């Protein structure tokens, strides 16, 4: 935010940046070859539901659009912070279809002027040992970071750092570690 915006109190809302989402399938291949992690086929979008009829309508249209095909219906849930999660499921080997679903949610909300309400998207991975890993996409930065929960309120930082180094060439990784926000109990993990 520039000085003039600060002085006049005009908040430029941070714009969502969606393009990097499509580099996920390539990153998943790298992850599968270099480590044991493979996609679970579940992915979710987290956003802030605005009050009023306009948002309700947008969300309704969106769910109808995504459910109008053969794959499993999207699931909607609200977390303890008041954020809404839309969970989409696809076959584990078809990550491209999942990313398309997530992208649809984002572009629809953005087209109706709710781009500022988008928090993050998450795609779930798991390994044979049962460890969970989420690749989280931050819209406002246009970057990814790994999130590996290990029981309630604990995360596997070592694994997260390994994944970061592994995917450094495939994805724009968030460099500022303080932005690696924990997402406990996120749907899709």
């Amino acid at each position, binding site marked *: *935010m520039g*000085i003039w915006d*600060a*002085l*006049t*109190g*005009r*908040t*430029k*809302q*941070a*714009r*969502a940046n969606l393009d990097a989402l499509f580099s996920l399938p390539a990153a998943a291949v790298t992850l599968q070859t270099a480590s044991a992690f493979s996609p679970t086929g579940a992915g979710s979008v987290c956003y*802030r*539901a*605005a*009050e*009023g*009829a*306009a*948002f309700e*309508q947008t969300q309704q249209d969106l769910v109808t659009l995504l459910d109008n095909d053969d794959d499993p219906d999207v699931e909607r849930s609200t977390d*303890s*912070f*008041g*954020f809404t999660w839309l969970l989409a499921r696809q076959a584990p080997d078809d990550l491209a279809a999942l990313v398309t679903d997530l992208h649809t949610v984002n572009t629809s909300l*953005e*087209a*109706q*002027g*709710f*781009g*500022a*309400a988008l*928090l*993050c998207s998450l795609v779930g991975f798991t390994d044979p040992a049962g460890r969970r890993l989420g690749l989280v996409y*931050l819209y*406002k*930065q246009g970057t990814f970071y790994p999130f590996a929960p290990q029981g309630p*309120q604990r995360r596997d930082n070592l694994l997260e750092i390994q994944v970061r180094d592994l995917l450094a060439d495939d994805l724009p990784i968030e460099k500022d570690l*303080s*932005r690696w*926000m*924990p997402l406990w109990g996120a749907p899709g993990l």
Partner: protein
Amino acid sequence: MARTRFINDRGLTARMTLVMFLLGALFVALVVGLAYAGGAAFGGGVAVVIGVAGIGVAWWQWYNSDSLALKAMRAREVSPQEAPELHGVIDRLCTLADMPKPRVAIAYTDMPNAFATGRSPNHSALCVTTGILDRLTAEEMEGVLAHELSHVAHRDVLVMTLAASAGIAAGMLTRGAQYGMMFGGGGRRDNNDNNNGIPFWLIALVISLVVYAVSFFLTRLLSRYRELCADRSGAFLTQKPSALASALTKISGEIASIPSKDLRETQAMNAFFIAPAVSGMTLRTLTSTHPSLEQRLEQLAKVSAELGKPMDGGFPAPGLGL
């Protein structure tokens, strides 16, 4: 393609810019007035030194505002382990707003309030009292935190310090002029022959008193505009204007019902609070640091209507372009 529902309030921006311009002009008037009154007399130099000292004090207060304010409130910085919910909400709001996360502190007092301070978004602190944590629901608390984060993003501590600097300098000069009258009276008479008879210190006293009075009302006016701005941005950030509205209603009612004995020690902090802790009624509309509850609720209702409108098509609304 990317569109936003955030609409600038041009009227508010214009009024605020005008007040800031007037404050700047006031500062110039102070300097020029003193230069004319002082002329070549040695008093002019002293006046400049006193003025600069005043600005220096203001700058120091601004530069250390985060630690000073936290100390004044006897607040304690808390880690994510100590207050996971509070940190979680702030984490998410900062990610939504794409801004650095401020330090988080809790003040152990029953007065329900929250404030943000710090010289820049990178050196800022956000403080809530245990009183506000007890009284508000999670959603209302989020509205309040978004309001405070907007203050950080708008650099309100810097803006208000700049705005107050004319007043601070004038206040210091008033003091200086009083001392000048007491001790400098003898020295003045030596080079009285090339002057029109009115002692320089008297003119300086009058000028600085006038500047101080005008700047007092202008600063308060600006402070009220900044609050409205923060309400607006905060409501757009959480997308829930009604949560902030309900929080404001709750806090304002609570604060008015608290005996004034508790409030005296916190009066110096009022400019940065979410709702003022003073319940005096005299000259209230002109001198209060915060806009009235009605004004704030009215604005939040407008934001709510803005969010509820369909972006394109739907029911016709005049002036709603694509």
